[in-house]
């Protein structure tokens, strides 16, 4: 129902406003219901006609008039067909969006005319897009309460169904009262009993030798790789693929002296008789037929042979019916092939200009029954080049060695290989569609409350509604099926869907009741991450669109300036009409400049270009006027000179902007490289200091085991406190005061946990004290609430028990921490001195870390991609490094080691986040065609780095020379395939191994 909006006006496809999507969805539903009702009504009338005809024919047969019965039946069938035809006549028109719109308007008078207008405009875009959007919004609003059942009620179907009931009643009456039942009548009409079973060439009349206890043993052809199968006590009927050897063994009712096995189409073969009553022989299944034993001239009954055909493979492909790809753009061709007994090869048949060629895709060595793969191909892999339009189908060949290899084909799809410009245009269209589809959900998520639900049930409802925000996005995303995953647009879709999946999966898994603190934190964090992902997607797509517009403006303005100069030079040789025609052509091309300018943001470049465009319009007008009145050539030349100058100014301005932006990028790139190096050095310096601290501690008394033991005790107590404080009995208590008290305690408990994890003895001790106090306060409030009846006794008892447990654990943690502090304060003077001597070095690292955090902030502020994670990690690193300095000065070795470890970890994370931000920025700029503002990537290593990125995303197979022997290499490959590896690796490994074996 969603139509491509490409039309004469050049409106791009995919761009479907949210309101229009809603309208179209309703129209689809009403059309579906209308179709269903029409089919039901036609079916009801046809059944009625057939029932009546059958009843009449039964009576006619009963009266002995078979001819009349036949005529009645033909008439009834014709009537049924006619009724169906009447009912479905014009169905296609009636199902059209416009007819559905008319039907909806008929029941919603206030939308009369408006809905039809929206439907018409969707199919034939014209007029103001803004007004259209407004109208669509209003109509969508008006339709929000309209349901398909209101538009197409069930009543007409019931009316028609009554006729089938009448026909059915007539048939029942004839069956009960008539001499024949309809079935008997039909048998009589058709000339007696059904035809006999298959005629056997060896069938014979006369007495039969009786057989019993027939055992069949199937020995299947080797290619089926089926084990032999013995089936005892059968009815003698053979079911097996051709080529199967069937060993038959049976017992006879009486003893015989000689036996033969007769199989239709085959020569009789002697059978073995044991004790005159156990007979056995074998035959090979060929075609359909029968088998029997013949004993001394008396044959047994015939037994059917039913060959099971080895079918051709079935092939399914995961791609769109039409696929446009760039010349060098990789695309994924997903297929799934299955066969009854095994596959020998998978090919792609590519037909270009009537000539078909086969391209091998896979040649599995183990002839699997099912094979799924998604190889990444380029046009050249299929033998295609720029401009080719190919019909492609994937074929799977089976391993049938008996009746010959058979092939099964997928449906045919089309691959169009675009040129550079076509490919870019397609990507640009897709980006524009993605942008338009992502803006409404972003807006909606931004306006959601900070926490959209208080309970799990509410959250689930919210998620159901919120997922609808992606309807338009999903439509666009579906257009990208088969798109290579490395493609920028595919990654945008993947990122958006990833954040969305994380959020909704979490929300849908929430318990129904009130949300606990941990769930609230996760919920808001996932919600924030989802918004950030949408923001980055929208911003990036918009940025690319603007960068492309910049490039296009430079190219167009430069070309137009050249045209203007050519016109200026050839002016003398042109007649007035010729010159005016050339000028008009120039003018039309300049309109495109105006359109491109509107794609830019509302910044200074747009003002600059708009100002020049306005002046250009004036200069064109003056030139046109002077040429028309055939003014002096010098005047006309000056006019054109002015036009060319203005165009040069435009191109020059944009180029200068690009250049300046590149300069900024270069400076940023240097800063990023410096920062990257600094994070690396800081992490290393911090690790070295941690090692020195540890060495000093071990040398001067405090053993690691003692310290670890002490901290393990603190860890256990803290976790116990946190666990007790998150007990469900502490949530949903009706008293606000109690809830607040418990909230404080939970907050302090979490703070205690954080401090302990950071091995910050001093702060952990403070937080332990806070936790003990706040639990005590919460308990007092609970007691008071229980006394006044605000909280019922059983709930209060359960909550009190949890608080007691938490209190005990917190006190234990406090005591353990106190012991740790005492141990540190009574540490050996040598240790204190050694640690103090390290504090200077640590202080130096902390100083550098503070400067690095400042630089990180500056870089994050200048980067186009989101580098906030890097900034946060750098700040954390600086903070931990400073804390380590303090701990060393206090002589607390364990605490300082903890801080040093946390600092080095933070610096490593900062470095990773910086590299990720650089990569994001690169990908964004690469998607813009490597050009636009900031063509040179900050932090990029140029082509080398791009290849590195490609390499990281592509599955790589180790080189044979990395192994000592070819056997070791193959073994390693096979082992690699056994483990938990990504599917892409698995498939690539298989492909590689197949190739290897063939060599």
């Amino acid at each position, binding site marked *: 129902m969603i139509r491509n909006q490409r039309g004469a006006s050049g409106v791009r496809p995919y761009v479907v406003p949210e309101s229009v999507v809603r309208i179209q969805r309703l129209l689809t539903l009403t059309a579906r219901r209308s179709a269903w009702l029409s089919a039901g009504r036609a079916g009801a009338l046809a059944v009625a006609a057939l029932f009546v005809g059958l009843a009449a024919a039964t009576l006619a047969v009963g009266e002995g008039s078979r001819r009349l019965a036949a005529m009645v039946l033909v008439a009834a069938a014709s009537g049924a067909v006619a009724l169906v035809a009447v009912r479905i006549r014009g169905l296609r028109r009636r199902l059209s969006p416009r007819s559905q719109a008319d039907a909806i308007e008929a029941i919603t008078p206030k939308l009369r005319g408006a809905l039809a207008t929206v439907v018409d405009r969707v199919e034939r875009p014209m007029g103001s897009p803004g007004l259209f*959007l407004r109208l669509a919004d209003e109509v969508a609003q008006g339709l929000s309460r309209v349901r398909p059942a209101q538009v197409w009620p069930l009543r007409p179907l019931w009316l028609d169904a009554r006729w089938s009931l009448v026909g059915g009643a007539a048939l029942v009456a004839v069956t009960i009262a008539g001499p024949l039942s309809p079935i008997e009548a039909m048998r009589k009409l058709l000339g007696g009993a059904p035809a006999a079973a298959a005629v056997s060439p060896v069938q014979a009349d006369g007495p039969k030798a009786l057989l019993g206890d027939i055992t069949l043993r199937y020995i299947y052809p080797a290619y089926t790789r089926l084990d032999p199968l013995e089936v005892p006590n059968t009815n003698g009927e053979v079911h097996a693929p051709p080529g199967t050897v069937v060993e038959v063994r049976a017992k006879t009712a009486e003893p015989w002296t000689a036996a033969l096995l007769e199989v239709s189409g085959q020569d009789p073969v002697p059978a073995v008789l044991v004790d005159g009553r156990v007979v056995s022989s074998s035959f090979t299944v060929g075609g359909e037929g029968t088998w029997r034993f013949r004993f001394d001239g008396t044959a047994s009954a015939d037994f059917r042979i039913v060959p099971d055909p080895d079918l051709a493979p079935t092939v399914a492909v995961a791609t769109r019916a039409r696929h446009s790809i760039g010349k060098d753009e990789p695309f994924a061709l997903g297929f799934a092939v299955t066969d009854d007994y095994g596959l020998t090869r998978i090919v792609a048949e590519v037909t270009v200009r009537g000539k078909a060629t086969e391209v091998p895709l896979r040649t599995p060595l183990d002839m699997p029954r099912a094979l799924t793969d998604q190889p990444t191909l380029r046009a050249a892999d299929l033998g295609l080049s720029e401009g080719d339009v190919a019909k492609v189908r994937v074929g799977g060949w089976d391993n049938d060695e008996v009746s010959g290899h058979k092939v099964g084909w997928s449906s045919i799809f089309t691959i169009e290989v675009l040129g550079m410009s076509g490919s870019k245009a397609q990507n640009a269209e897709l980006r524009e569609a993605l942008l338009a589809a992502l*803006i*409404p959900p*972003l*807006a*909606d998520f*931004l*306006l959601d409350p900070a926490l959209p639900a208080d309970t799990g049930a509410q959250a689930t409802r919210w998620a159901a509604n919120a997922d609808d925000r992606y309807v338009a996005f999903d439509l666009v995303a579906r257009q990208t099926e088969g798109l290579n995953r490395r493609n920028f647009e595919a990654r945008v879709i993947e990122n958006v869907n990833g954040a969305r999946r994380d959020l909704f999966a979490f929300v849908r898994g929430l318990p129904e009741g009130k949300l606990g603190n941990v769930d609230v934190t996760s919920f808001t964090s996932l919600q924030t991450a989802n918004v950030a992902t949408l*923001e980055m997607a*929208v*911003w990036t797509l*918009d*940025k690319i669109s603007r960068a492309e517009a910049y490039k296009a403006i430079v190219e167009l303005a430069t070309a137009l300036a050249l045209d203007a100069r050519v016109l200026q030079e050839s002016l003398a040789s042109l007649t007035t009409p010729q010159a005016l025609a050339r000028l008009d052509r120039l003018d039309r091309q300049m309109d495109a400049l105006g359109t491109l300018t509107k794609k*830019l*943001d*509302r*910044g*200074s*470049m*747009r*003002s*600059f*270009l708009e*100002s020049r465009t*306005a*002046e250009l*319009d*004036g*200069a064109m*007008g*003056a030139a046109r*006027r002077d040429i028309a009145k055939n003014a002096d050539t010098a005047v006309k030349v*000056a006019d054109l*000179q*002015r036009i060319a*100058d203005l165009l040069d*100014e435009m191109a*020059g*301005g*944009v180029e*200068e*902007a690009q250049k*300046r*932006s590149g300069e900024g990028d270069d400076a940023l790139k240097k800063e990023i490289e410096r920062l990257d190096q600094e994070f690396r050095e800081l992490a290393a310096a911090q690790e070295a200091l941690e090692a020195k601290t540890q060495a000093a501690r071990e040398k001067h008394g405090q053993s690691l085991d003692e310290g670890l033991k002490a901290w393990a005790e603190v860890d256990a107590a803290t976790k116990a406190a946190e666990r007790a404080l998150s007990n469900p009995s502490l949530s949903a208590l009706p008293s606000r005061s109690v809830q607040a008290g418990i909230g404080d305690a939970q907050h302090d408990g979490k703070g205690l946990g954080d401090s302990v994890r950071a091995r910050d003895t001093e702060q952990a001790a403070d937080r332990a004290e806070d936790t003990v106090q706040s639990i005590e306060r919460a308990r007092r409030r609970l007691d008071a609430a229980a006394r006044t009846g605000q909280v019922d006794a059983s709930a209060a008892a359960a909550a009190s028990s949890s608080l007691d447990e938490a209190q005990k654990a917190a006190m234990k943690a406090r005591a353990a921490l106190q012991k740790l502090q005492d141990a540190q304060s009574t540490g050996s003077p040598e240790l204190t001195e050694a640690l103090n001597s390290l504090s200077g070095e640590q202080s130096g690292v902390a100083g550098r870390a503070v400067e690095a955090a400042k630089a990180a902030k500056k870089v*994050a*502020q*200048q*980067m*186009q991609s*989101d*580098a*906030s994670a890097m900034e946060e990690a750098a700040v954390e690193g600086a903070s931990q490094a400073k804390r380590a300095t303090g701990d060393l000065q206090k002589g607390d070795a364990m605490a300082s080691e903890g801080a040093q470890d946390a600092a080095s970890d933070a610096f490593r994370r900062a470095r990773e986040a910086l590299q990720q931000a650089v990569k994001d920025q690169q990908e964004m700029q690469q998607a813009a065609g490597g050009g636009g*503002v900031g063509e040179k990537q900050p932090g990029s290593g140029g082509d080398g780095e791009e290849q590195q990125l490609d390499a990281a995303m592509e599955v790589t197979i180790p080189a044979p020379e990395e192994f000592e022997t070819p056997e070791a290499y193959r073994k390693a490959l096979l082992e690699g395939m056994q483990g938990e590896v990504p599917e892409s690796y698995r498939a690539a490994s298989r492909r590689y191994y197949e190739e290897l074996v063939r060599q």
Partner: protein
Amino acid sequence: MTLLLWLATALAGAGNDVVACLELSDLACAQTAAAGLGSSAEDRAARAELDFHLGEFARARDGLKQVVDGTKDPELAKRYALFERVASATAQFTTERRGDVTLRYRAGMDDVLLDEALETLQASHDKIGPVLGGAPPGGVRMELFPTAQRFIDASSLPGEAVRKTGVIALSKWTRLLVSSPRALGRGYGWKDTIAHEYIHYIVSWRTKDQAPVWLQEGIARSHESMWREDEPAALTPTQESLLATALAEDKLVPLTKMHPSMAFLDSADEAALAFAQVSTMIVHLRKTAGPDAVSRVLDKVRDGTDALQAVADVGSGGDTTAFMQAWKGYLKSLKLVSRKLAESKVILDGAGDEFEADPQLGQRMDLARFARLGDILLDHGKAEAALVEFGKAAPPGEPPSPILSVRTADALLALGRKDQARSVLLASAKDYPEHAPTRVMLGKLLLAAGDSAGAFREYRAGVDVDPFDSAAQAALAELYAARGNTPLAERHRRYARLLTSTEPATR
């Protein structure tokens, strides 16, 4: 002046006299001396130099070409290259003369600047000249360049330096070279800039080019508004903010650091601070020693007195320390803006992205990202959501952004929240009075609310900075008409027509 010095040594007789006069920015003297020029190569070079100063660029280029062709002198070749560049940059320029002012510009869109440019220069000549002890004889010549690139070509300044320092106007070769407000995305205070450059011309002539940069800039900055007002210009809120911070932290820029050029200071903020310092020094001088104080200082500098000593002589009886202390005391008496404000970046010929010219967002790509997202949402009719993004782009504790204020007001207006929009704009206009979109939007709101006086003030301020806004010109025309000022109403209607006409270049 290096080349002129070279010429002075290379030439002899009348040629030498012409160049010596030009060196002193005395065009009348040079024209008189030129009467004695003959047809020798040296004399032809001197005449070409005079033509160049007079703004006859094609004639100057052609004249010097004859001399250059006959010599291999590299200095002359350089001079010829300059003449050629300037002639190319001013090709198709129109000349307009009124009173003492000669203006060359490219007809077309810049026609909207013509009347006010001439009026500003004439007023500067008439009002500021006497304050500074007289203006150079022979009137004033100015070229108005439609793009920064043409300004760069004509100024002989390195393009990189111009774009880095944001120089948009210059007083050189006895002429004023000024970029059209069109060269900057949203215009600039171009009329005060014209007056500012004219003051440099006067000071250079009055002191025989002996005034140091700090004195030149101090006088020019403080007096640049006196073509329209009787008293020196007030500091901008940004300058006040910088000065307040520097005073509090005792980080004023020493005068010696301002030599030889403000462009060599460490940062744009330091340059802005230096301008604020020297400007207030001159204002303080005027306040303590009377309106003719500056003229007396110029006389002393011309006679060879050190500039700071000359200021002290006039302002505090010759004690430089006492003058500086008194000036600091004066600064402390001012109620300076202490809010944290950022300095706007000058973006020439649109060479920056949408927020680069913004004092805050131009430095903060992370915040600019949210601002752009707000724009996108607003363009798609999601005003409420746009406000959320704009909010993210303006975290607490950061300097305000004028562009963001306008966008926020846009979103608020889309939601019908006019009062909030007005408050946002009023606050922004206070911090960044030269941000034309703020003023124009505020004018529109005030006009809709029936406050025509307020609307006139805002529209006038907006159009003064960005005269290329046709809607603002049209609104201003109607406001003039309502005030009974028919000539100005007609003028601004003409400008509005000119800016919206499909043939603005047909005058």
